[in-house]
């Protein structure tokens, strides 16, 4: 198992390097002179000043040298500086990341439990009314974008029923209940499409395992059906569910940009949104980098979970 995990970690290195090159190059996509990109569009400078800035920021260096310098800074924890506030991005993100993580965690918790239970039920009772309803709601769930779901929820729960606020944020450590009230609609908007995908993959992987010979053998030797399900079906069906789950949880961070913007939550998603209209390019670059790193981390966790679930990997060394 240790060998397997070490291989996995080693395989992450080229991906991480690639991710860093892509994020480094992102800011070079901005049309125009890099000096204006660094100083913002409002700066008025003489040719001398521009030349000074070019040397100061190392813009005359060849691109690989610039990349190496940038990577060195990133590795020491400096992912850039906001144009607008001039503050370190690492600090800005540290303030906002907890909100996004809370939102994502809540969305996962709200989504995954019903998704897996209904998915198993739909597979076990294939072609029943429950299965049909589950399949239909999955299809609707993956076809309704986050922002539309948010619009519908706000219309129903904030405007018509007046149960929950349509916008705003209360800090968790100041008023936990108020925090939950402001987080509930965003978490559902984010979590429902996630739940739909998870339900679909649970249903199809349980169905797939139910058709295997070893399940028929287990039944034939007279095991009770819940015994078959718990011992033979679910552990084997768990593997694709974990894979898809890991990818989808990381994908939630993309949806968080939209949901946080709609509900006015001060997370990294809303930060990116504000940065775009202000042309605060380093912020967009920094958040993209952090989220991609989170994705790579999640895929590592998924690989570790594989090793825990799959005895072939657990035993091997």
């Amino acid at each position, binding site marked *: 198992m240790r060998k397997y995990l070490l291989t996995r970690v080693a395989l992450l290195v080229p991906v991480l390097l690639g991710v860093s090159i892509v994020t480094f190059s992102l800011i070079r996509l901005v049309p125009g002179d890099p000096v204006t990109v660094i100083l913002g569009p409002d700066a008025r400078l003489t040719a001398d000043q521009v030349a000074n800035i070019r040397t100061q920021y190392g813009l005359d260096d060849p691109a690989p040298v610039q990349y190496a310098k940038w990577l060195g800074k990133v590795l020491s924890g400096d992912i850039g500086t906001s144009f607008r506030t001039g503050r370190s991005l690492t600090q800005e993100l540290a303030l906002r990341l907890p909100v996004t993580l809370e939102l994502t965690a809540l969305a996962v918790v709200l989504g995954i439990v019903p998704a897996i239970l209904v998915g198993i039920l739909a597979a076990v009772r294939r072609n029943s009314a429950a299965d049909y309803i589950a399949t239909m709601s999955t299809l609707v769930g993956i076809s309704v974008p986050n922002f539309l779901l948010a619009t519908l929820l706000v219309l129903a729960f904030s405007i018509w029923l007046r149960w929950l606020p349509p916008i705003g944020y209360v800090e968790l450590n100041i008023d936990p209940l108020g925090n939950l009230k402001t987080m509930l609609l965003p978490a559902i908007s984010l979590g429902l499409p996630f739940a739909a995908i998870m339900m679909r993959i649970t249903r199809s992987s349980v169905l797939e395992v139910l058709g295997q010979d070893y399940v028929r053998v287990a039944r034939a030797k007279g095991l009770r059906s819940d015994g078959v399900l718990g011992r033979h079906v679910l552990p084997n069906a768990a593997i694709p569910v974990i894979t898809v789950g890991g990818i989808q949880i990381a994908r939630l961070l993309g949806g968080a940009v939209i949901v946080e913007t709609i509900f006015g939550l001060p997370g990294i998603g809303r930060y990116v949104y504000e*940065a775009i209209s202000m042309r605060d390019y380093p912020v967009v670059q920094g958040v993209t980098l952090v989220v991609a790193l989170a994705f790579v981390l999640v895929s590592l966790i998924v690989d570790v979970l594989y090793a825990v679930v799959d005895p072939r990997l657990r035993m091997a060394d």
Partner: protein
Amino acid sequence: MQQVDVQTRPVGLVQTPPKQRAQSIKPRPSWVRGLLRQRLALTGLILVLFFSVVAIGGARVAPYGFSEQHSRDRMQPPGGAYVLGTDEFGRDIFSRLLYGAGISFQVGVISVGISGLAGILLGLVAGYRGGWVDAILSLLMDVVFAFPAILLAIAIIAMLGSSLPNVMLAIGIVNTPTFMRVVRGSTLSLRRTTYVEAAVSLGAPTVRVLARHVFPNLAAPLIVLASLNFAFAVLAEASLAFLGLGNKPPSPSWGSMVSSSYGFLEIAPWAALFPGAAIALTVLGFNLLGDGVRDALDPRLRY
């Protein structure tokens, strides 16, 4: 005539049982029939056809222009002169929906075209060449895949500038890995089939082997991918437009229609609900069609 023989099976070298041959002669009709058997897939097909017709011809039959403002008729409820009501500028929602379908369709076709073309080429090369070419191309796709699709699209558009062509390009880029992976995987296994080996040993150039013997076998999974990616492209364009990325107002993109009327939800909910329903139904249609074709192709699910 000789080519046909090479393409199917090298007769004389490998004796194929007659039963298997009978199956391999007409694989296509069976999945088309399988598709039509499924009601959900058929619903998807109808939705897709309806959307395409509206997208192509809708603007011509729209009762009003998409930016035509009727200042006396702001936020009129559905019915009367305005079938689906009007928005906060007194613009006819029905007409804007018809025009907006064209934008979604354009984004879908072009971005799926970009990711399809890039993904197919990269996948064929990686799968057929193998070795370090494959390793590098696969790594490149893993890297693109390491960013949440919507966030990477947002980042690309934020840097390149907000416009519809950049939206199409960004969606095309973030979708390329899905095409590349499927094409690569199938090419890897097709490379070892007898008919490809036969074509190679007859001296066919690589381009010909890929175009005539490998690519046609990818057609079916590519239809599935194109349909599912079209669904994603429509959804992504709407989400980006909702955030204000893409065409500028008064462009009737469905996503921006929802976001501009969001502030008036209490007074005129229809102005957000109709474009929302249009997005959901279109995405649903392409998802249903893609799933349906996939199920029809999967022999394990056919019975």
